[in-house]
């Protein structure tokens, strides 16, 4: 029996070392808490800026302070205007007619965190926010329409994207690309501006194996994923089976989403919002 005790004793020491090393690498509970606090701050800022966009759309001016914003409509009344740690109200500074700042005392340096989490290809949700901040007191600048997905969707008919329509299939493709973009926009609007995780800066095909958007979008934001006429021209409603749309998606550093149809006759159809 002694050998089993020896074995488990040595193995326990090994496991303890792994746990200590793992905790050291992750930064421990305090570091995780700080990241979550900053994430909450950024999310709160997103909500506030979204409501300010709405306020500007209805009043054609920026609110004088955040209390005015809260009283402007029922959805704004649910805003969290206090810092999750200090419980003090966020600072709001009106810079110009369309520019304002939101300030808070951040617990981490977003660049350091992003660099660390990029190693696991995991920090997308954070870097997508395009709002970097140092550790400590910092103000983030916003411009009206910064996150205006709804406006972009509403104004879509006014857009003049670079599309070469040379066949009936291309008309269908343009419609499909638009549907996908609308669905992504609606998803982002419902998720505080956060895009589906499957959308990366590198162009990927919308398939089960690359940009797997099906579960995110179907059926809440689009009844079925459209398929390129060359690939099959079917409607993808079941996300549990292998699918391939023939359409590609990517985003840039400013969170602008591009959906493209490379199978289009003539020039590749590409729409960016």
């Amino acid at each position, binding site marked *: 029996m002694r050998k089993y005790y020896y074995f488990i004793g040595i193995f326990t020491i090994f496991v303890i070392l792994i746990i200590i090393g793992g905790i050291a690498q992750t930064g421990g509970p305090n570091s995780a808490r700080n990241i*979550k606090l900053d994430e909450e701050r950024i999310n709160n800022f997103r909500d506030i800026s979204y409501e300010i966009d709405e306020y500007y759309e209805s009043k054609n001016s920026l609110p004088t302070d955040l209390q005015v914003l809260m009283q402007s409509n029922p959805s704004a009344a649910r805003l969290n205007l206090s810092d999750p740690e200090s419980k003090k109200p966020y600072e709001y500074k009106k810079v110009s007619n369309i520019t304002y700042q939101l300030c808070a005392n951040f617990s981490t340096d977003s660049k350091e965190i992003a660099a660390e989490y990029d*190693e*696991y290809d995991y920090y997308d949700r954070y870097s997508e926010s395009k709002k970097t901040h140092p550790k400590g007191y910092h103000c983030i600048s916003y411009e009206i329409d910064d996150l205006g997905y709804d406006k972009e969707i509403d104004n879509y008919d006014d857009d003049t994207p670079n599309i070469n329509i040379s066949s009936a299939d291309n008309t269908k493709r343009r419609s499909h690309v638009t549907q996908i973009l609308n669905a992504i926009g609606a998803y982002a609007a419902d998720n505080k501006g956060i895009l589906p995780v499957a959308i990366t800066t590198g162009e990927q095909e919308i398939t089960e194996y690359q940009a797997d958007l099906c579960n995110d979008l179907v059926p809440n934001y689009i009844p079925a994923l459209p398929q390129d006429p060359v690939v099959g021209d079917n409607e993808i409603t079941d996300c549990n089976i292998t699918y391939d749309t023939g359409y590609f998606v990517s985003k840039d550093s400013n969170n602008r989403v591009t959906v493209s149809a490379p199978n289009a006759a003539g020039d590749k159809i590409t729409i960016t919002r």
Partner: protein
Amino acid sequence: MEVNNHDLGQPQQNSNIVHNSLPSENLSPQQGIQSSNHSSGNTHTLEAFAYLFMFITLYFVSAAIGMILHYSAEKFFPPLGNPGGDAGGLPDIFSWFVLDVIGSGYGLISPMIPYLATLIVVYPFFAVLFLWVNKRKLEDPAIRKLDIRKLFLYLTLAATFIFMLYKIIYLVMNLLTGNGSLNFLSHFSITASINLSIFLYCFFELREDKKFNA
């Protein structure tokens, strides 16, 4: 100490234990009644469950240790080219598991945290079960014949052997195609050493069983 007398492979000296270890058909009726309390299939239900849970916790512990070491390797020996997938980085299925299943709802967390939590919670159970089943095995060698124990030992042996074979083929393939980076080799070493340890444990257990039966 009584425990020392029961060391694996040593003849059992304690008469009470000898009775328990003998097949019931070789015992007197009185002895048979006594031994049936310990050596019949029904009375080993607890040991059977203990083996079942021990193997389950073994899989959890080995997976958690493997993933923590894989993430550490990814950090200390970053891939030169495109990370992830079959290029030598972390398998996509684990990234998916961490991102969408475990990590979902927790916001931003290091993907190592779910595995650390698994190890912290499951390891004590594994250690206690491991010691207990081995203690019981030495006290009552009939436990060696438990079907569930044999089943798990053979299944684990086969699974680790096949997986090791696959990994070695994969290693050779990568070396032949010039992809033998430090990142790839570190991932290979982690997987191979964990697999090999479990394989050897099962192998020696089965070999001792054979010796004991002989």
